[in-house]
């Protein structure tokens, strides 16, 4: 073989990888720096804009505060006891020397019709003065033992700042006046130190540094994450999706660089940019603080030791790796620059969710949260800044998040080996109609349906009869949209709704599985509330919603168990499942159908249990190929909870053993269903393993 430069010498694979990665990283940086406009707009501009916006909104807020503080409160006094009220208000507006509140600027305005003047905005406050006698008459419905004293009614408007604030301050002044009056009375009766009775002197054990650290520590990871996501995305969007669009990815894939090397190189570039932007933004903010453009609260001592700074940086590295990995992955899944951008917003939203963990005051790193990537580091950072070092858990948090980053990197590599994703023209038919079009539209259609449902429920709840509300939801919104979709895409009704016969042996299994599933779901719900305790008020509201008074139990069973069993199943395990059956493999399919079902229960704390139940229904439908068993299961499930509620049997109050037994029964039912399975037709085949690259 004749070549003009001789055959290339072989080098060790590790050395070769390093060489390739270095070449790609260098080229990427070169190209990034040469794209001046993007660098300026997406990296330099935010450096100035973000602090300026913060400064601006702070300035506006402070100005408003000052204005309200110094604004004159125009008031009028009316009623039969006007004179004494006037003197009280004047005394209340001039606080005693030792009072903590500042003077209120009051100006009395004469008005013939003060109520009208208040409405017209000529007054901020109208004080109606009632004599003791009038007050007692007015208070007939009130407690019998209350003492008859003169009454001041402060009329104000909550929809006007100045009015609300004025009323509030006058009320405070009056309360202060009353307190002083009472102490003076007691002291005059020889009770010398009575003013100290039951007073509290606070002693704070924490150092000012740790207190500031706690406040500041809540925000650190959230802000850093936002910087990383927005800065990293500039490179990420361009790096795989942009290369696909320009056709350079194919060029790169025909080179000897392995896909792992390409992913590593690109990951490193995004990581470097993300870290760089974080460092620059942090310095930038410190500079603004030093220049007093962003004021710190009084007594705020932010004093971070150099060792702690290093520790914080070390803690943030796995987050940066994870964030850049996720960005790379999204870019890898998008076919074009525009598409990648489209995914960015949802990624930003979902990505920042775990970073709010430090805002939960009772969440400690020493808990199950340590297994949640990002959230664990966010908590660790807060605790470190507040002066607590829980080393084993800090290390565990680091390892967990780093492992997540590694896993995401592997997924990105997988995306680069997925042919449909790297060769843009593959797998997409030019002309799509009927069923295939329906598959693409089913998610948006359900999103629209969710919107209609949400708007309907939130504007109607508690204002109309529950039965009518349920009927509209089930028949008009759920079934109606399904039928519209079926008509629009000319789909076969029987198949969409999976109206198929099942083996008789399935029915007894469903009868056993229904109650077991409900108890197991309650267990899941309790498990979830261990990590995120549910507010008591919400639990009560839930009970009220499902157990309305004045509806007989047989009607409840129909409206809450039978009808939802039919219509919700037709919609979710019928239409939705049918629409998604080719887009997802069976397991993710069941999970997705369950999760979407959960979202339709518009309450954060019901999401998990209903999603769990939804996954069960979807699995049953997939295993039996028919919607009927899921319908029965659903009806039994809901009926059980209605009946349990009726007889005040509290499912969440059961022992752990009950949940365990229920879970076991549920598992056995599924084993049996698996044995008897007559699978749902036309599912997406299992993915084939890809040969190595």
């Amino acid at each position: 073989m004749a070549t003009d430069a001789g055959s290339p010498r072989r080098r060790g694979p590790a050395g070769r990888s390093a060489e390739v990665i270095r070449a790609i990283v260098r080229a990427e940086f070169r190209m990034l720096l040469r794209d001046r406009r993007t660098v300026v707009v997406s990296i330099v501009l935010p450096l100035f804009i973000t602090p300026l916006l913060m400064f601006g909104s702070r300035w506006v807020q402070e100005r408003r505060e000052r204005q309200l503080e110094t604004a004159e409160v125009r008031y009028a006094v009316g009623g039969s006891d006007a004179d004494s009220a006037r003197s009280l208000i004047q005394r209340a507006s001039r606080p005693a020397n030792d009072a903590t509140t500042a003077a209120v600027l009051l100006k009395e305005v004469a008005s013939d019709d003060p109520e009208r003047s208040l409405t017209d905005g000529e007054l901020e406050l109208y004080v109606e003065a009632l004599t003791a006698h009038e007050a007692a008459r007015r208070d007939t419905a009130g407690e019998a033992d209350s003492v008859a004293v003169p009454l001041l009614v402060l009329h104000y408007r909550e929809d006007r700042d100045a009015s609300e604030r004025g009323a509030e301050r006058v009320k405070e002044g009056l309360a202060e006046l009353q307190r002083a009056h009472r102490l003076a009375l007691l002291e005059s009766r020889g009770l010398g130190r009575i003013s100290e009775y039951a007073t509290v002197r606070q002693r704070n054990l924490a150092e000012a540094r740790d207190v500031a650290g706690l406040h500041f520590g809540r925000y650190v990871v959230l802000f850093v994450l936002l910087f990383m996501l927005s800065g990293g995305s500039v490179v990420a969007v361009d790096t795989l999706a942009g290369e696909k669009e320009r056709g350079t990815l194919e060029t790169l894939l025909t080179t000897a660089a392995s896909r792992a090397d390409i992913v590593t190189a690109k990951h490193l570039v995004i990581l470097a940019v993300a870290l760089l932007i974080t460092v620059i933004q942090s310095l930038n903010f410190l500079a603004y603080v030093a220049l007093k453009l962003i004021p710190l609260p009084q007594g705020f001592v932010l004093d971070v030791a150099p060792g702690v700074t290093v520790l914080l940086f070390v803690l943030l590295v796995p987050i940066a790796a994870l964030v850049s990995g996720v960005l790379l992955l999204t870019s890898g899944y998008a076919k074009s620059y525009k598409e990648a951008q489209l995914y960015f917003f949802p990624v930003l939203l979902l990505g920042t969710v775990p970073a709010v963990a430090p805002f939960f005051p009772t969440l400690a790193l020493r808990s199950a949260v340590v297994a949640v990537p990002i959230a664990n580091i966010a908590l660790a950072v807060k605790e470190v800044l507040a002066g607590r070092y829980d080393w084993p858990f800090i290390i565990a948090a680091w390892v967990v998040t780093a492992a997540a980053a590694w896993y995401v990197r592997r997924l990105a590599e997988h995306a680069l080996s997925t042919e449909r994703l790297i060769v843009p023209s593959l797998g997409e038919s030019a002309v799509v109609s009927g069923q295939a079009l329906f598959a693409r539209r089913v998610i948006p259609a359900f999103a629209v349906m969710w919107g209609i449902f949400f708007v309907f429920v939130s504007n109607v709840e508690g204002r109309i009869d529950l039965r009518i509300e349920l009927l509209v939801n089930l028949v008009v919104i759920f079934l109606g949209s399904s039928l519209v979709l079926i008509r629009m895409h000319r789909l076969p009704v029987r198949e969409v709704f999976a109206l198929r016969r099942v083996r008789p042996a399935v029915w007894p299994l469903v009868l056993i599985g229904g109650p077991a599933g409900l108890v197991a779901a309650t267990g899941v719900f309790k498990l979830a509330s261990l990590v995120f305790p549910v507010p008591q008020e919400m639990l009560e509201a839930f009970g009220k919603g499902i157990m309305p008074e004045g509806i007989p139990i047989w009607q409840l069973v129909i409206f809450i168990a039978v009808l939802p069993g039919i219509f919700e199943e037709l919609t979710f395990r019928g239409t939705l499942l049918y629409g998604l059956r080719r887009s997802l493999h069976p397991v993710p399919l069941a999970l997705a159908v369950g999760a979407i079902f959960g979202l339709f229960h518009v309450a954060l704390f019901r999401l998990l249990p209903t999603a769990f139940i939804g996954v069960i229904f979807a699995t049953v439908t997939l295993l039996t190929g028919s919607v009927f068993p899921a319908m029965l299961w659903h009806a039994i499930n809901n009926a059980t909870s209605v009946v349990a509620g009726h007889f005040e049997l509290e499912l969440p109050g059961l022992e752990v053993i009950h949940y365990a037994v229920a879970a076991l029964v549920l598992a056995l039912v599924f084993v049996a269903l698996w044995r008897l399975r007559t699978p749902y037709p036309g599912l997406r085949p299992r993915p084939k393993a890809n040969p190595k690259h």
Partner: protein
Amino acid sequence: MSEITVEVRGLSKVFHDESRGEVRAVDGVDFACRGGEIFGLLGANGAGKTTTLRMLATILAPTSGNATVMGHSVLDEPELVRRSLGFYSSSTALYPRLTARETIEFFARVNGFPPADVDGRVRELVATFGLDKYADARVEKLSQGMKQKVSIARTVAHDPPLLIFDEPTVGLDVLNALEMQRVIGDFRNRGKCVIFSTHIMSEAERLCDRIAIIHQGSILACDTLEGLRTATGFRYLEDIFVHFARDDEHGD
């Protein structure tokens, strides 16, 4: 003749399509070619040429069958396969914000050209393709013809024994297309094995030592132009192509 550079055995590719279901884009293709030879894949759009070549370049994985390049299998040693080949097509673009010189250097390094020799290789290629004046201008600023030269230079940056040209003349004007043909001929003369796909009959007639006619994923005939003429009795490649394509459809 020199040793076999590429050997393709029973190569097939099946795609899943949203509305059409399974599509056999390439269906049991066999061929082999050697150094110093231009092997032409001739077929209409969508015949499976690009898919075959992409499998050879290991961008796509074959559903069944195998291919070897310089003795390395595309299934087991994809990196060594890619190191032995240069892939050029109208869809393999260049990085717009790198200069011509940086582009060539980048591809030489990524393809594992000995680092110590990279600078010399880049200088050599810049001279060979007459890029001296434009070597330090960004690729986005270059004219179409210049870009084409840089593209070819990056394809051969690591001096591979096999060169794949997938419809290289699509969208080129006459002068640039002729230049392309001249360069491809040159590579053959220097002993490279060149695989060249096209749907333009005259190009295949003029350049190829052997021609494979590919239609609906299968190779219908594979021979020298003379051999094809004798087998069919037609003089022009157009007629020969239509003859085979029609036969195939009647056979279905």
